[in-house]
């Protein structure tokens, strides 16, 4: 059973996140980054499947130099090897281009039975890359899994539970397949001391676009379908309005809320 987990290196949500002034892309240089927390669930799920049976977990990331940290964290958690696609031309890529690079990298890896992703990244939060990726690979996409069961090993099936607002669905796909997982599916482990030490010896390959047969013109800011034309930092929170209750506090509150269309 060969599992590929796609992970993203994102700016730490606790830090002050911003955009590059020059091209309005996410600033990934001057902000501390980490493995997207939503991807930790994908890594954990892959590890659980392999631990319960057999197989190998490869983590794949597309990102700049620092994105190696995301791979490192996944390897510390227990993944077996890493692939880092790193090419200056990728800077500014949108979801369409990212899915292309991921798809070509997975094809190059070859014999893959299951691709697992998080439900979205914590920076872009678009959540479209998994389906785009499945489409490019010609794999069934079973998305937003709150539970995943793999039966029959490599040639078998993947069954997920998807919790919707109105109903809970059980969906089965034949392998190979792509599954995206939600933050309800498991509790990601912390790397153990042994895991941290073992990770140092695990193989990580770095590939450029040329290794994947992708042309620079297919990716990057110029190829993006949409562009951020401007950005403004969110203004700091202003002091709230204090209503003095002179017997009419209730109606003043109601007026305040209805003015803002809350009631």
């Amino acid at each position, binding site marked *: 059973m060969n599992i590929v987990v796609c992970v993203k290196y994102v700016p730490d949500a606790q830090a002050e996140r911003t955009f590059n002034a020059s091209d309005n892309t996410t600033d990934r240089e001057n902000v501390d980054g980490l493995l997207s927390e939503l991807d930790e669930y994908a890594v954990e799920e892959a590890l659980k499947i392999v631990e319960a049976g057999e197989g190998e977990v490869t983590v794949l990331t597309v990102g700049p130099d620092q994105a190696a940290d995301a791979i*490192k964290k996944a390897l*510390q958690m227990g993944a077996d090897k890493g692939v880092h696609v790193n090419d200056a031309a990728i800077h500014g890529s949108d979801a369409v281009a990212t899915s292309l690079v991921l798809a070509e990298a997975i094809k190059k890896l070859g014999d893959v039975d299951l691709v697992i992703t998080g439900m979205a990244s914590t920076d872009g939060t678009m959540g479209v890359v998994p389906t785009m990726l499945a489409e490019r690979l010609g794999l069934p996409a079973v998305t937003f899994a709150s539970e995943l069961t793999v039966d029959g090993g490599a040639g078998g099936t993947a069954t997920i539970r998807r919790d919707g607002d109105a109903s809970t669905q059980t969906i089965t796909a034949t392998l190979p397949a792509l599954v995206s997982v939600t933050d309800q599916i498991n509790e990601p482990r912390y790397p153990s*001391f*042994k895991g*941290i*030490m073992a990770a140092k010896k695990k193989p990580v390959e770095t590939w450029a676009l040329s290794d994947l047969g992708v042309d620079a013109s297919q990716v990057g800011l110029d190829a993006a379908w949409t562009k951020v034309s401007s950005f403004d930092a969110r203004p700091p929170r202003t002091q709230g309005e204090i209503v003095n209750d002179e017997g009419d506090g209730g109606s003043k509150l109601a007026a305040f809320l209805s003015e803002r269309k809350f009631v």
Partner: protein
Amino acid sequence: MFELSQDHEDFRQVVRDFAEKEVAPHIAKWDAASHFPADLVPKMGDLGLFGLVVPEEYGGAGDAGDFTSLCVAIEELGRVDQSIGITLSAGVGLGINPILTYGNEEQKQRFLPDLVSGRALAGFGLTEPEAGSDAAATRTRAVREGDEWVINGAKAFITNSGTDITSVVTVTARTGTNADGSPQISAIMVPAGTPGFVVEPAYHKLGWHVSDTHGLTFEGCRVPAENLLGAEGEGFKQFLKTLDDGRIAISALAVGCAQACLELATGYAKTRTAFGRPIGVNQGVSFQLADLAVMVEGARLLTYKAAWLKDELHAGKRSVKEVKQAAAIAKLYSTEAAVTATRTATQVFGGNGFMEEFPVARFYRDAKILEIGEGTSEVQRMLIARGLGLPA
């Protein structure tokens, strides 16, 4: 040269993350209820925290681990909460270490795997109501009857001795008299639940509310003769050595405390305004924080120097004497720095610093014991003076 390795820093990051996610959100509640979170201990075990100085055959990290890593873990837990830090520090230093160092193979196989995985905790009972700094004044007695030891006496303030997962407490007891008339002291392992081994109700403590501390009473408590830890009469030497390591660990705990105070107070001084400007613009405040930063740096350097020496000693490259002195120096300086740090931080927080909603209040209560446990500041000064060759 003055840097921990990348491995240590990677590990620090993981423990910090763990402490912030698994401890920080609950700690105020646990502290208010004096609740010992037994569920947290196996999670700490999964991280490998209890096995950092333990060989692989008992589930530990083996050669990959070292004492420095243990100090990193204690510092980082202690930065979020001191009680959780001492639970680890005592769990390893007082619980696991004596068994690992002095136990025979059967004893190690019996107790260590569960202790290392965090499925159990062990305590070390040295202090008595009438024997603290002067630990040789032990009154607890163990008398050999057939193939059993019969223990009578009492121990005071024993950490991790009464949790739901405590498996064993090693106690020191008089087992005879030496040729020179001094008491012969031995260490004996008493498994939890042994008849005659009474765990008294938990103390009401000024701080360390989340840490488990009990008085213990032994009334005709019988354990098999093979529960003797190490050779008969070696108990005194054993605990002296155990305490040397423990001191470096307490020093790391104090660094975590001082570091937390520095971060909290600096953050507050930047945002709290008085007289129309942040309080941190006043030198009366900022100089205190500058002094605090110096203390944190000094404490950290002394602690990790001692930890490094301890690892060097383990590799056969240093003398016991050198480590002993470094441990006492680090413990003395760091714990006094931590107490000062909590006083400064509370002062910077003003009235809020006296309120339990703010962690500085908890650190203020928790810090004082650092100057007392595993040898008081006075005892450290005695040891350091002795290390200088002054007459004892």
